[in-house]
């Protein structure tokens, strides 16, 4: 084949390939729309490159976790002293001691006898069940997931979890709930979720007097869970700003240096 013919032929081939590539995407998307609606469009203070956590919201979210979620869900990766200080939820050391002391943990005394003692700040969050088998047995055969990393472990984490918490509905007409039971949720893949609706209006009475609507509760607990998934986020963004500014300055200097070095060469 002559070169003159090869190029148009190949370009035509590429055009066909691109056209075929574009085609299957559409029906797939349409199907997804019918199955699961787009996640609710909610925003939080922690979003964006300069976003930070709202401590009051984190404390309200922790209250919801403690009074509602923690009945079934563990948060094994956190310790009580994570809650203290400005990188935590803003509690003082004393407050954290008191929070920890409300829980009992298994330990041994100096004679080697098994005992229960109040939790200390250095202890990990006390789980609601002794082990996974016990958690599964008490929850219809499947242990509720640990929530430490739940926001990082889901696509569009904050909006997804908010969607689940606010997405419980009566099953639409014609929707067959499986005989094994379950609950209908707009945003859960397949719509049948084992967890019953955990939050309603006034599920808790907020310590700071905020009105506890379902949306407010979901918004707050998602803020808390996001902090729990990523407790170093604020430190990360602060450090990042310094690093990027430094690199920008260094790039400018190096560009000047490079121009100077090359100024005596024809290139």
């Amino acid at each position, binding site marked *: 084949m002559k070169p003159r013919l090869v190029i148009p032929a190949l370009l035509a081939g590429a055009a066909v390939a691109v056209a075929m590539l574009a*085609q299957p995407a559409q029906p797939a998307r349409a199907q997804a729309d019918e199955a699961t609606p787009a996640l609710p469009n909610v925003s939080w203070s922690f979003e964006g490159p300069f976003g930070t956590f709202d401590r009051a919201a984190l404390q309200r979210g922790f209250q919801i976790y403690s009074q509602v979620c923690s009945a079934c869900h563990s948060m*094994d990766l956190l310790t009580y002293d994570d809650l203290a200080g400005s990188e935590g939820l803003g509690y003082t050391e004393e407050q954290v001691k008191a929070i920890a002391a409300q829980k009992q943990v298994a330990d041994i005394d100096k004679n080697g006898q098994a005992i229960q003692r109040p939790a200390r700040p250095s202890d990990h969050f006390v789980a609601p069940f002794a082990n996974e088998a016990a958690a599964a047995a008490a929850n219809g055969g499947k242990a509720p997931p640990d929530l430490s990393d739940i926001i990082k*472990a*889901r696509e569009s984490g904050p909006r997804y979890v908010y969607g689940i918490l606010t997405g419980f509905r009566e099953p639409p007409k014609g929707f067959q709930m499986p005989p094994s039971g379950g609950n209908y949720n707009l945003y859960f893949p397949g719509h049948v979720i084992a967890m019953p609706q955990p939050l309603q209006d006034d599920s808790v009475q907020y310590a700071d007097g905020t009105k506890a609507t379902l949306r407010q509760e979901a918004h707050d607990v998602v803020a808390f869970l996001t902090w729990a998934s990523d407790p*170093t986020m604020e430190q990360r963004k602060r450090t990042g700003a310094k690093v*990027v500014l430094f690199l*920008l300055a*260094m790039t400018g200097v190096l560009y000047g240096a*490079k121009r100077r070095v090359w100024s005596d060469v*024809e290139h």
Partner: protein
Amino acid sequence: MAVSQNKLVQWIDRRLPVFTYLDHELNEYPTPKNLNYWWNFGSLAGVMLVIMIATGIFLAMQYDPNAGDAFQSVERIMREVNYGWLIRYIHMNGASFFFIVVYIHLFRGLYYGSYKAPRELLWMLGVVIVLLMMATAFMGYVLPWGQMSFWGATVITNLFSAIPGVGKDIVTWLWGGFAVGNPTLNRFFALHYLLPFVILGVVILHILALHQHGSNNPLGIDRKGPQDSVPFHPYYTYKDMFGLSVFLIVFAIVVFYFPNLLAEPQNYIPANPMQTPPEIVPDWYLLSFYAILRSIPNKLLGVCALFGAIFILFLVPWLDTSKVRSAYFRPVYKWVFWLLVIDAFVLGDVGAHRPEGWWIVIGRIGTFYYFFHFIVLMPFIGWFERPLPLPPSIAEAVLKKRGGAPVGAAATRAKP
């Protein structure tokens, strides 16, 4: 010849000529004066390797390669070790950036014919590095022991079961058991620590081979004299440092502001052998090869195609029959090169989707075209194409370009 007036340097150099060697390889080492910014990616890849080894060693000090604790130990690094999150995010995203840099470096070599005589071994050593990187990255991805770690390891190691007769036994041997488990994690950790140093060794050979004949250049013609080149230092040390700085800005933005952009959320769920995730996909840098694997209906042939897609790169210096190195002067190959780039992206997209419906068809066309490019197009275009006339020397081409007319245009006018 004294490399320095410093008495201590002279004393050392007389006994161990490291300073003479560095002087020879940096100050005297002649480099074509017309290298463009695509030539920055070689040194960038070297920097990435150093960053990966440095962060990796610090991670290994805190990581626990035990199936019962691996996931928790990575989270401990992220949450409790001072700046552990930074080291881990640099390492995790560094793998992706290392591949971006190396893939650009590889395609740069393909475009400018950097694999042609006398640089065939230089190219082949580069392909060895890519292979070692893939093995290292795959084993590194297993270490956090999340869902995708576990199931990715299961799928990829299972590929070896396609070997006729002994396949099953080989897989059991690789696993150190009858499923991916603690022994698998232990050996993957050992190898993940070892292989980067093997890569470092091959990189040194790669640089030795490079310095034998020096860099290729965008025109693809040999240096003819001192007017064609500049010493590597300070000209390219400064240019490389500037390029590195720009690269680090992009890298830092991802590490500090979008650290999980390229991560799979499923991998923040601890490995569970009883529950298969809805979809098992490798990291993005292996998706094109994964698509090739899944495009072949037969498992054994699929595995052969997967490895063939990489091994065919070893043959590129002989598959390309054109006498002209740079695609700049090759009116047909230039286009075909970009089609290969598009093909690589299309295959990457196919690899990220379930193999159903149109994706199967596109995957098969893409796979066919990939091999068609190397086995048919490369040799045939080399035979039939009429390349543009080459400029007489790098210096002349550079001067003409500075005079206003682009090199290509000048060369076209000179065509008889």
